[in-house]
């Protein structure tokens, strides 16, 4: 259900495996996030992601549990890569399955918001301009706040 590892991610293979695992449920939404070739800091050579195990995994598991509590899902999967990556490499793959497509869309979206803002990863970009550690962007907080507004008590 959740993997954090330095192994490359093959999104197509991950989607196939997920669809096989969950059986015949109606709709599956997947999200693939890849390393961008350019950032505001320059042309990216390497993206380095650090996790703190098992705290990182525990945080993702809690987010998965929260997502499953909130939407009626038949499956949920997170694969997150750490270590050194090149532009175009897949950093994260999320998939959600549900009988109703709206639930699958919202669950995948919500989980991605968690992963992009609150998940315990530190990120370093090596660009043609130098090396920089990336800390949160204001817009990430805003997107996460979208959900907080409709949070159940």
């Amino acid at each position, binding site marked *: 259900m959740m993997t954090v590892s330095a192994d490359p991610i093959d999104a197509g293979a991950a989607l196939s495996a997920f669809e096989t695992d969950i059986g015949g449920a109606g709709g599956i939404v997947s999200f693939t996030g890849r390393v961008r070739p350019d950032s505001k800091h320059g042309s990216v050579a390497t993206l380095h992601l*650090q996790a*703190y195990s098992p*705290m990182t995994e525990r945080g993702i598991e809690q987010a998965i549990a929260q997502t499953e509590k909130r939407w009626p899902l038949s499956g949920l999967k997170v694969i997150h890569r750490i270590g050194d990556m090149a532009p175009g490499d897949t950093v994260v793959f999320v998939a959600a399955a549900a009988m109703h497509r709206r639930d699958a869309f919202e669950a995948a979206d919500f989980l991605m918001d968690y992963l992009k*803002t*609150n*998940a315990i*990863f530190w990120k370093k970009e090596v660009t043609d301009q130098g090396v920089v*550690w990336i800390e949160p962007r204001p817009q990430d907080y805003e997107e996460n706040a979208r959900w907080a507004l409709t949070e159940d008590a």
Partner: protein
Amino acid sequence: MVQLLYFGRLSDVAGKSEEALTLPETVTTTTELRSWLDLRFEAEGALLEPTVRLAVNNEIVFDPHPVRGGDEIAFMPPVGGG
């Protein structure tokens, strides 16, 4: 002996991502640990910032939290997300 972990930009500040050392007797809390290490690394306050959270044995703690031999203590700057 405690195990210290420095994440994100703090690994640059510390010049390493982890180390094992014996704390002086005067360092018994996370607050004292921050100050002692900040001086030791000449970090100019980088380890004192409130946005830098400390985890003791894989649990985020609030200053001052006791530290003792055998602890794993992590210095965590704001997370950058996945």
